[in-house]
């Protein structure tokens, strides 16, 4: 059976009673000379009628009883939970996402405050920056000063340790290796060590080495 595609659409609209007058006339004119479209229209009508007249089923007699028992369970379930009016509005996935974001936020806050407390205890840098205020220039200046102070502190620590153990070269070398400004410190340490080796009464020399380092 051939299908005139243009008119098939018209046939479809025709059986739905959804066709404008002009197209209806055009289709009817066409069908006078097209047996295929005539048959298509007949079949389309028949199909529509057959589909519409398929047997209609009714729910089983137990439908209402089963539904009511399911509803009862549902109502009991929801009343055992917190029966608050806003609960139906809460969707589990967005609620979980919001809770996770909240936890991350709290975690970051706690982490930051711990970090700040630690820095306050250990570095003079932060204190210097805070004392200087928050202007950009002041902050840069304060940062430089603070860096210098930090280095001085490290060097003092190193020298103090070295003064206590003037002959223990390996110990002081190990210590120097772990210092922040390792290379520079090691150079000074080597200079100091050579002087220490030359002069057993080394304390004044070490102080001199300390004083000769410009930060």
């Amino acid at each position, binding site marked *: 059976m051939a*299908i005139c595609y243009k008119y*098939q659409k018209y046939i479809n609209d025709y059986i739905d009673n959804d066709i404008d007058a002009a197209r209806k006339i055009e289709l009817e004119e066409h069908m006078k000379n097209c047996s295929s479209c005539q048959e298509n229209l007949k079949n389309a009508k*028949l199909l529509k009628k*057959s589909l519409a007249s398929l047997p209609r089923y009714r729910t089983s007699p137990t439908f209402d009883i089963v539904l009511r028992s399911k509803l009862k369970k549902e109502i009991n379930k929801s009343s055992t939970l917190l029966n608050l009016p806003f609960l*139906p509005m809460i969707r589990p996935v967005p609620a979980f996402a919001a809770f996770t974001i909240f936890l991350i936020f709290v975690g970051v806050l706690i982490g930051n405050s711990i970090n700040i407390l630690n820095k306050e205890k250990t570095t003079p840098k932060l204190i210097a920056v805070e004392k200087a205020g928050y202007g950009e220039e002041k902050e840069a200046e304060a940062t430089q000063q603070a860096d210098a102070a930090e280095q001085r502190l490290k060097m003092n620590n190193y020298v103090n340790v070295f003064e206590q153990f003037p002959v223990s070269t390996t110990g002081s070398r190990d210590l120097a290796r772990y210092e922040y400004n390792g290379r520079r410190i090691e150079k000074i340490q080597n200079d100091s060590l050579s002087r220490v080796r030359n002069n057993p009464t080394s304390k004044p020399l070490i102080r001199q080495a300390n004083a000769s380092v410009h930060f």
Partner: protein
Amino acid sequence: MTIKTNSQPNFSDEELIKKFQDGDLYAYDLIVRRYKDQLLNFAYRFLGNLEESEDVVQETFLRLYKNRHAYKQIAKFSTWIYTIAGNLAKTELRKRKRRKLVSISELGFEEKEYEIEDLKADTERQTDSILKEKIIKNAIENLPFRFKQVIILRDIQELSYEDISSILRIPLGTVKSRVNRARIKLQQTLKDLMTHENKN
């Protein structure tokens, strides 16, 4: 919650759902009565099994109960409930596909008794009607899903194109074109039946 003994059941769907949203369980009952058979037939044309279809309808009404506040008056209630039932039927089909089970009841008749509306008393006609239904049912089941959806909604449930467009959330033009193509496909599949019917 108030349970009203209402002697005027001629409320529109939208009025009933509003009453139900306000706590009127009688309104819920009326909605169930109004839609249970329609939805059963709708689900049945997808699933081809009455017991499974009834489960889908039960679940639809449970969801209606649980999510009553999700319904907004901007949409037609009928399209909303058909969307829920359609999605549940689709899920059931997917589950069935996964299980890859073909139960014998699907091939024959269901064990449970279901009443058929307006079945003619004449045995010959009854047999003819059952056979015809089986042939049409098979033809519908073999349609691609997108055609099956529209043909069930349009020619079996007899919903308007606008309602189908809202239920399936596709443009009106697409609905019309799919209905057209689905009808052509069905006519081709049911050619023998059509010839037989035309002769009679």
